[in-house]
């Protein structure tokens, strides 16, 4: 039985989950559990590093959608990084890229999520000033 490699790193307040392997009906639940644990520990500002995902089907896409919704509900932000051609294709096919930003690199994705994390605080400061 194949397993996913899952590793979490926190850069400041944004956590990156690196996924390695093939995300299908047999492994999607592992990804979901790992991401939930990461969000509990680090909060809803999240980058999923898909650079080393060799295959993803709709079970994986469903997990990405759930995670995106959960991040939004908690006023956080999800970004995807570095999907290979097959993964990028199915993401586009169901239109997920219209809802979740897909970046070429992890560094770009982290920067984007960091920006979302900072902005609400700045907005609050501004409203206090007014």
């Amino acid at each position: 039985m194949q397993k996913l490699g899952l590793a979490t790193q926190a850069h400041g307040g944004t956590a990156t989950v690196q996924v390695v392997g093939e995300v299908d009906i047999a492994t999607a639940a592992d990804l979901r559990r790992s991401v939930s644990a990461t969000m509990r520990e680090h909060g809803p500002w999240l980058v999923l590093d898909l650079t080393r995902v060799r295959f993803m089907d709709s079970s994986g896409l469903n997990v990405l959608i759930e995670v995106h919704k959960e991040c939004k509900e908690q006023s956080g932000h999800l970004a995807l990084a570095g999907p290979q051609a097959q993964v990028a294709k199915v993401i586009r096919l169901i239109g997920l890229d219209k809802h979740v930003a897909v970046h070429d690199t992890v560094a770009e994705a982290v920067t984007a999520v960091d920006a979302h994390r900072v902005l609400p605080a700045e907005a609050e400061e501004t409203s206090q000033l007014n």
Partner: protein
Amino acid sequence: MTEDTAAPPAGFAAVRDAVTVRMPAASAYLSVLRTATAGLAARLDFTLDDIEDLRIGVDEACAMLLAQALPGTDLTAEFELTDTGMRISVSVLSADGRLPERDTFAWTVLSALAGDVDAFADADDRVTIVLHKHRAMPGSV
């Protein structure tokens, strides 16, 4: 898992080239079937993009069927070379012969990538999904 190969393709159109893969109806075996699909498609001069599409298509079709397969039964995948491409029939025995729902991401991905797709159920509640992926003809790019 069993694998039966018919006569090798001496001339493309004349010889029936068919492979049947039978495996436990369990998700852990899906990656094996994806690999078999890619290997067979490569043998039939599909482009790399088409091979990838077939791999996803077979995966989605099987994942849908596994959700309703009777425990302890097999999933059967039949690969057959046709004049225009490859026809793949995947089937399982189910409890109620229910056809896969089509308003899902799985069906969206399957129907977009796998060419012509159809699903039907037999009287014995065996549910089958058939994919027919057409090969780009020489000269048609």
